[in-house]
């Protein structure tokens, strides 16, 4: 409970950089951790794409090293492991640590005017738990029979010992459990910090929208990660202790058996909120960035918060749309369809407010602004195609095709990733005291958004044409051979997309150590985090600031020659 006190800076290397309880250090640990995993998951995606465009031919460069038994060719089992681990890594070890771990830790205390999180030790524990989860997941790649092949959703009976032998799947479940525990610790810490440690004068409606997004994400984390924890416990028991919670009677030697669909319920009760867990922080960041770089107050601040709240509530009651083809009562299916459709209403309110925020603003097209605009574009594409999947009659045909793959990549992957990129370019100067190259940043943006759009829009077409997901070799089915050229286009664009990320990696690493020194407030914004010196002192605020203005008071007519005002100053009467 020391977020409101000043503590002396630790002097030993271990306490300062490794086992630090300082939220700023933990934020950077999460950032590096997440970026490295994004790289690993990204390389896996490249290998998946290689196999889909050139089925059965050896992977160039790294193939011989990774698949020596087959002379560099990805065998079917390895292909299954690749798409399973790609999904798991990107969601749990890539996006979650970067968006929630890194920017949650960085933004919350600095933006609300606190000296640290309210429970610094719990904060450190949260990072080391996710690190342990990552280690367990990574280790599972090297056990006999390799990592799990059951898909990132881990549906039984594929994920029970009936479907997957070896320790891979068990270790996967342990890793997911640990990562979930880490998110719960973070969530409890974030919520309590936001409630208790806001600087004097900072009303709920004075918080930057970034903090709001992280707050709602934390609520979902606390409420729904435990459910997948229970699901994983039961799966581990089935695999280790020989119970049959998920193993149906038909494939058991005994007379009585369990219910594989039970797992689907437990998984999606968590799984649907999870997509909003990933997108809500990105939405909050985008809403702030649009206002900051349009030099206009965020349009409809309270309505935006209300819409995010509505999404948070609704996200808990729509999970059934993942199970339309599993089979459920028609009435239940229709209810889930209706509720899913209703979620698009607050979604559209957010779009309306974002577009109104930039409407007639004096746009400063920095890299982070471009990525914020990019989120509007890719989430728009993903959201509109979601309507076909929410509708039972069309979902029955599109379920488990590349249409779904394109849809969820645009919404929860690309949008969340764009939010993370926008935030990285934006907060980098305060985090590391140096500027990232805008020139390379813009190049990165354009070389990302164009191929990315091609990659996932081609998937819509091939999915609409009936191409199923998770197939090892689509050319083995006659009706898919005419669609193979689409796979080639997707793969070529994906390689371009992957190569473009190297520009980001180079920009990040070069700027971290050799970039030009950043001034205290290079973006000229009024939130508390930019009012402090760079680098941020160990105790953040020497004196806890008193908040007098909202976070988005731009271009106020009475401000004279400057178009922004710090949150600590009163607006001129």
């Amino acid at each position: 409970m020391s977020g409101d006190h000043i503590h002396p800076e630790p002097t030993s290397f271990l306490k300062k950089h490794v086992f630090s309880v300082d939220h700023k250090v933990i934020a950077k640990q999460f950032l590096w951790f997440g970026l490295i995993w994004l790289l690993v998951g990204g390389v896996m995606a490249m290998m998946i794409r290689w196999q889909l465009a050139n089925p059965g031919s050896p992977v160039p460069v790294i193939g011989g090293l990774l698949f020596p038994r087959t002379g560099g060719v990805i065998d079917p089992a390895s292909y299954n492991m690749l798409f399973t681990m790609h999904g798991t890594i990107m969601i749990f070890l890539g996006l979650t640590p970067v968006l929630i771990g890194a920017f949650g830790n960085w933004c919350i205390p600095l933006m609300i005017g606190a000296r640290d999180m309210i429970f610094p030790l719990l904060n450190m524990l949260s990072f080391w738990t996710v690190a342990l989860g990552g280690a367990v997941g990574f280790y599972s790649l090297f056990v006999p029979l390799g990592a799990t092949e059951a898909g990132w959703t881990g549906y039984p009976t594929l994920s029970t010992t009936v479907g997957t032998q070896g320790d891979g799947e068990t270790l996967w479940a342990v890793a997911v459990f640990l990562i979930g525990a880490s998110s719960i610790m973070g969530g409890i810490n974030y919520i309590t910090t936001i409630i208790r440690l806001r600087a004097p004068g900072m009303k709920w409606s004075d918080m930057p929208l970034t903090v709001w997004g992280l707050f709602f994400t934390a609520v979902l984390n606390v409420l729904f990660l435990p459910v997948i924890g229970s699901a994983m416990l039961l799966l581990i028991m089935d695999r280790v202790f020989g119970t049959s919670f998920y193993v149906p009677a038909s494939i058991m030697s005994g007379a009585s058996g369990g219910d594989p669909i039970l797992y689907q319920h437990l998984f999606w009760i968590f799984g649907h909120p999870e997509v909003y867990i990933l997108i809500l922080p990105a939405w909050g960041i985008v809403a702030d960035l649009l206002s900051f770089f349009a030099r206009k107050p965020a349009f409809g601040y309270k309505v935006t918060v209300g819409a995010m709240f509505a999404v948070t509530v609704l996200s808990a009651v729509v999970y059934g749309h993942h199970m339309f083809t599993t089979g459920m009562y028609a009435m239940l299916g229709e209810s889930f369809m209706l509720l899913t459709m209703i979620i698009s209403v607050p979604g559209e309110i957010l779009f309306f407010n974002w577009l109104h925020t930039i409407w007639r603003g004096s746009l400063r097209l920095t890299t982070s602004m471009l990525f914020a605009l990019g989120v509007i574009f890719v989430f728009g594409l993903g959201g509109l195609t979601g309507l076909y999947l929410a509708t039972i009659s069309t979902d029955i045909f599109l379920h488990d095709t590349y249409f779904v793959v394109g849809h969820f990549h645009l919404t929860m992957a690309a949008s969340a990733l764009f939010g993370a990129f926008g935030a990285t370019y934006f907060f980098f100067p305060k985090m590391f005291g140096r500027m990232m190259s805008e020139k390379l940043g813009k190049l990165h943006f354009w070389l990302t958004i164009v191929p990315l759009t091609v990659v996932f829009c081609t998937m819509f077409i091939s999915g609409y044409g009936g191409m199923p997901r998770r197939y090892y070799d689509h050319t083995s089915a006659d009706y898919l051979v005419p669609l193979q050229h689409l796979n080639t286009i997707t793969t070529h664009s994906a390689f371009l997309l992957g190569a473009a990320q190297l520009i980001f990696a180079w920009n990040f690493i070069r700027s971290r150590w050799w970039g030009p020194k950043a001034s205290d407030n290079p973006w000229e914004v009024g939130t508390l985090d930019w009012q402090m010196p760079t680098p941020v002192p160990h105790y953040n605020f020497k004196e806890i600031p008193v908040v007098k203005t909202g976070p988005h008071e731009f271009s106020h007519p009475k401000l004279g020659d400057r178009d922004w005002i710090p949150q600590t100053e009163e607006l001129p009467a």
Partner: protein
Amino acid sequence: MSTADATADQVLEDAHGHHDDGVTEDAHFGKATGGKIAMWMFIAQDGMSFGGLLLAYGLLRIFSTDWPVPAEILGITLTATATFILICSSVSMVMAVEAAKEQNQAGTVRWLMVTILGGLSFLGIQYYEYTHLVAEGITFATSTWHGEPINNLFGSTFYAVTGFHGLHVTAGVIYLMCILKGAMAGKYTKGGMSYSPVELVGLFWHFVDLVWILVFTFIYLL
């Protein structure tokens, strides 16, 4: 020493002057401490964990045709006694918090000990129950009753749910013991908000009891 360091030292001295004078008032959360809010969050997430397990139990039982009558196998009397003991330990927990608020150290220590005793008795009864059930053929993976195989999920769900709860009681007893140590040192009876840690362990303990009422109803009685 640079000027920045000098300022930092100055700040540190200033900060130690006015250390922790309680909590500031909040429009929505009153004077709830961070610890209290966090404990409620923890209870919410723990409730969802139990929710997941109980949902699994409910679905598995509803969709099976050969579920035995729980009372015939598990018996009610012994567990009803354990339930009564656990509820009584919630009462003694309330007494401990009240004593701490009244700065009555002896009372706090005494009631905490009674609560710990209640928790330990519950665990003892659970251990006795488990060993007997295992001896009679109800194990985690397979279940037989009077030599005849019955639905394996009966034993699996029973041990999963009551075992998960038993872990909570164990954790609660350890937590209570830590608080007891502090209470013996007089840490929580200094007036002001100093009773807060006793209140927090109380919240957790009441939650563990409340969940048991649900578990007892669903697993034993229904």
